[in-house]
């Protein structure tokens, strides 16, 4: 596989704060690469360094096999960027905005017109061509932001938290669109603190915390890094301590906790863990309500590696 982006030992400091701590990343052609981490973990700083917007203290960045500099115009023409904040002109219509940004990359007028129309079609903004951004809803505005970044058909698209403050319906449309772009051969770098999004669309993921890459791999690879393979949750009105001890002693159970009328049992490997837990409850004549079992999530991965849940960090 061809390496599209190669980051080696990237270090960025803001005074005493280390924003990026010897970060190394390899992103390959045709993949959707996710950068997952809580706010302040260094995702956007990585992107800004990647785009040569930010200066960095140490390390090197190569894109398409060439060193990335602020004047690497031959590299920049193949990159599409969708910023975290909507970056459009309030005074230009939807069509004019897309045409303007596409025109920064494509000089041929006829080709540009075709590309702009395709971007409008792709993002479903056909009915809003003559609308000014202020008249658009949050979701439509995000779609315009995306259209401005992809209209020139780049080989590499960088999306920095493109679904922040977007309703679920628009979010799904955006995610579907990203997957479609990837199916057409575009390499995607996607940053988010929403692990569900990352799990849904990314083929490979790097988890970041405090400027460091703490894990990298496919979803399955990441989940295999941790001992949790299954989490069983049971709703119970009461649970005597001796029963909790029995459950803790079951094979493959490495953690059992009862709080808030909920029994949470974490298992590592093994089969039929749920049946064994329910069997203990039945033998002790304890009635229970809802029972469900979950496979490990990226949050579990983050929790196990850092000792803090991703969502706790967001809070």
């Amino acid at each position, binding site marked *: 596989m061809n390496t599209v982006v190669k980051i080696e030992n990237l270090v960025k400091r803001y005074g005493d704060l280390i924003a990026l701590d010897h970060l190394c990343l390899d992103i390959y052609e045709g993949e959707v690469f996710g950068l997952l981490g809580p706010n302040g973990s260094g995702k956007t700083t990585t992107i800004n360094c990647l*785009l040569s*917007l*930010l200066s960095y203290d140490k390390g090197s960045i190569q894109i398409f096999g060439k060193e990335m500099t602020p004047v690497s115009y*031959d590299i920049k023409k193949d990159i599409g*960027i969708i*910023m975290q904040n*909507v970056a459009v002109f309030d*005074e230009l219509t939807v069509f004019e905005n897309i045409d303007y940004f596409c025109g*920064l990359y494509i000089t041929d007028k006829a080709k540009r017109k075709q590309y702009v129309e395709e971007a409008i079609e792709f993002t479903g903004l056909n009915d809003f061509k003559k609308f000014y951004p202020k008249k658009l809803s949050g979701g439509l505005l995000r779609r315009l932001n995306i259209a401005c970044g992809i209209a020139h058909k780049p080989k590499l698209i960088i999306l920095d938290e493109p679904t922040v403050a977007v309703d679920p319906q628009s979010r799904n449309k955006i995610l579907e669109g990203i997957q479609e772009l990837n199916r057409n051969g575009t390499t995607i770098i996607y940053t988010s603190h929403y692990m569900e999004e990352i799990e849904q669309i990314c083929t490979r993921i790097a988890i970041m915390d405090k400027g460091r890459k703490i894990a990298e791999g496919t979803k399955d690879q990441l989940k295999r890094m941790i001992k949790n393979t299954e989490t069983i949750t049971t709703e119970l009105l009461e649970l005597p301590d001796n029963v909790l001890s029995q459950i803790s002693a079951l094979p493959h159970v490495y953690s059992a906790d009862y709080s808030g009328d909920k029994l949470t049992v974490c298992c590592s490997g093994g089969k039929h863990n749920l049946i064994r837990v329910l069997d203990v409850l039945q033998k002790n004549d304890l009635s229970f309500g809802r029972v469900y079992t979950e496979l490990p999530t990226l949050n579990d991965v983050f929790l196990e590696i850092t000792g803090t849940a991703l969502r706790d960090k967001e809070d």
Partner: protein
Amino acid sequence: MFLHNLKYELLSSYRVKDLIIWLIIFPMILGTLFKAAFGNIYENISTFKTIPAAVVVEDGIDDTVFRQVMDSMTEGDEPFLKVTYTDKDSALEMLRKDDIKGIIVCGEKLSLTVSGTGSEQSALRSFADQYNNTQHIVMEALKNDPASAQKVIMSLQEDCSPVSSKPMTQGNTDNFIQYFYNLIAMVAIYGSVTGLHITVNNQANLSPLGARKCCSPTPKAIGLGASLIGSYIVQSGCMIICVSFLRFVLDIDFGDRLLLVYISAICGGILGVSLGFFIGSLNKFSFGMKTGLCMTISMISCYLSGLMVGDIKGDIASNTPWLNNINPASVISDCFYCLNIDSDYSRLKVKLLTMFALSAVFSVLGIIITRRKKYAYI
């Protein structure tokens, strides 16, 4: 690429409501207020015309001297009075029809009847008062030294006649015109806000828009150049609208070299944009701070040029003349003075060159600072 950038720079600029309000509508309102405040006075001074009046000589009065005075008042190309000798009833009828502004009755003393109030009525009243005050002197002079009578009559004539000054050029020399000059200078300096937005829209550390532009393969010099030229064009348009509104709608007399007035105003606008561009490029300050700095400099500059207090510019010229030479608003308004007052272009040339030099310095420094490639913070 350059034309593409320029096209959208112009398109987005003319749709900015703030720009329309502050650079077009606000100066129009302010200009109209100035006109309302000073225009009446200005008109009275500059458009004084011969006053029509009726003269009624009472029976049995020796009006020899009075007629001599009246004759001198009605002589020349622009006489003070146009008199009609008639009887009292006819005079009152003429006054009622507004054919005349007043009735001068020559009796033992000179008396006056006027309709309404105004500068012409005031002038007639002033004339009558002065006539009565000097009548005694004239009579005494005729009695004692007939040869001096003519001098006394002439003295009376000079005192009563409205003095119309003859300017050295065809320009407008009234004191109130300076407020309109400074108004144009203010619009020009307000262009600094337009200039400030150039840097905001082109710097990655100031706006997401700037970041997106910096990520594109368009060289920054092209983007900046298009933005600067676009802003110059937009600001020039605002200056033309401002001058045209003052000249053709409010009828402000800018003299007979209107084309040069337009050129000076446009140069002033370019200076304003360049100033804002330079302030915007100062990386140490936040956008809010830069906006505040821009407005403060604009206001101080306009204040020192006499927009708020008319005499301050003269005081500065007496005490610290160098300040007027580097104050953008003063330099701009000075151009209009030179155009209006000077018969040659030597001072105007110096002022225009100063504006050009200041614009060039601000623009070049701004480009050098803004073209930095990477930012330490975003």
